[in-house]
């Protein structure tokens, strides 16, 4: 376990710094938008934290493989230990990001109510899934989507590590082609419609199962790969 935790700390060498920069910029933009909306009072602003978090998680998870796989294996870790450390690191990151996001959501909503600001909205999943509480809805959906995005980005990182750009680009092309097929598209649409109409938050659990499959694919891909020559 010590080895895995040590590997996790290698993966997180730059984590605090990059997260601080990310949240710094996000809060700066949030404040600027809020101030601008209040002072101009001429338009309505819709601010979305969650999408920014998903993009950040995708980029950091993609980079994680390329930047750290060599170092970790070089330290004598097995591919399995590397994957375990990576998954632990990603899960911890997603939880922290979802927590920070809910704190911001609650705080901003508090400010908006206290000062009766009407032209500013901050997106919350609870505005779609109205049957559930703000905290549970946002924490759960941010967690599920964050994990899915992370695992997909890790698989892309592994594909890039093994085959270069050909790997991730091929997957993107296959995904685009697959979603353009009427059969798949209509099924996906039906699924999301059902989740919305039934307010079925638990359905997001499927994303976690997909993530586990994606992580398994990443492991299988990295399991036999030689370290890159540098």
């Amino acid at each position, binding site marked *: 376990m010590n*080895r895995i935790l*040590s590997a996790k700390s290698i993966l997180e060498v730059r984590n605090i710094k990059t997260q601080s920069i990310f949240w710094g910029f996000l809060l700066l933009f949030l404040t600027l938008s809020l101030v601008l909306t209040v002072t101009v009072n001429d338009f309505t602003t819709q601010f979305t934290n969650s999408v920014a978090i998903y993009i950040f998680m995708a980029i950091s998870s993609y980079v994680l493989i390329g930047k750290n796989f060599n170092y970790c294996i070089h*330290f*004598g870790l097995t*591919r399995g*230990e590397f994957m375990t450390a990576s998954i632990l690191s990603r899960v911890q990151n997603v939880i922290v990001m979802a927590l920070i996001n809910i704190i911001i959501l609650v705080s901003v909503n508090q400010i908006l109510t206290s000062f009766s600001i009407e032209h500013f909205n901050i997106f919350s999943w609870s505005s779609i899934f109205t049957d559930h509480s703000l905290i549970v809805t946002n924490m759960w959906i941010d967690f599920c989507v964050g994990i899915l995005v992370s695992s997909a980005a890790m698989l892309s990182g592994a594909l890039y590590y093994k085959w270069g750009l050909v790997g991730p680009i091929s997957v993107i092309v296959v995904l685009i082609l697959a979603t353009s097929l009427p059969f798949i598209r209509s099924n996906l649409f039906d699924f999301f419609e059902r989740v919305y109409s039934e307010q079925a938050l638990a359905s997001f659990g499927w994303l976690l199962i997909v993530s586990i499959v994606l992580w398994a694919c990443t492991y299988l891909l990295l399991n036999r790969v*030689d*370290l890159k020559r*540098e």
Partner: protein
Amino acid sequence: MTVVQMKNVSKKIKNHMILDNLNFDFEENQIVGFLGKNGSGKTSLMKIIAGEWSSTSGQVYVNDQKPFNNKKVLAKVCFIQEGNNFPVDMKISKLLKLCRNFYPNWNQEVAESLLELFDLDRTKKIKELSKGMESAVGVMVGISSRCEITIFDEPYIGMDANARKKFYQYLLNDYIEVPRTIIFSTHLIDEVSSLFQKVYVINKGRLLLDIQTDELKEKVYAITGPTKEIEEIKNKFTILEEKHFMGNGEIIVFDQSEKEHVMPENCKRNALNMQDIIVHVTEKGEQIL
């Protein structure tokens, strides 16, 4: 006990044969040198022993187990290459903490004394160090790990002569205190050759020689004398190089016979330094095979 065993090992990358049917093994607790020209396959061979690469065919055994992705083997191997050993954003102090968890035989006292010896500031990040300092960190980790198998692949890049001398001396003293298997690849052969008990000369992915260092020095030497007399004896040896000028000549020979040859009256046998031996052996390697 045999620590490394290679049976018909080959490695192919994109239709290019990097290692070609290697067969050798060596006993534990020796300092061995992997020598050869650039691109000869030394680093590939070390990566396979360290479990970073798999072989395309053949069997590799380290402590009787396959090293690739094998936790039992990987925990006993420390591989220090010429660069990119550690994350650049990591502080030396953090690296020291991590090494304790990765290397079961890690010796903090040795690490501390090497930090002092190389004047390394533990508060600095790897990216803030000069090339020589970064190499010194690699050397520090390699020695302090006290792994059963420590592999140094030209670990001294950027280190000045003084620092390199300190490294060789410290490595030897530590090896005497705690014998272990040390595999060393270097182009500065004369600086390190006195440490080697055995050398493996590799050329174009093939093993040319697998020989004790002293024996190699006995087998490869120069003979100088009159051209006429040299011509009389030269068919007794494998000739690695031949030069003649104004009736006198010099031949560099690889002497594969068991008994010592009687030299003609005016011919003289001259010893060569290790660097010259390896240069000549790798140049005419095909003749030795």
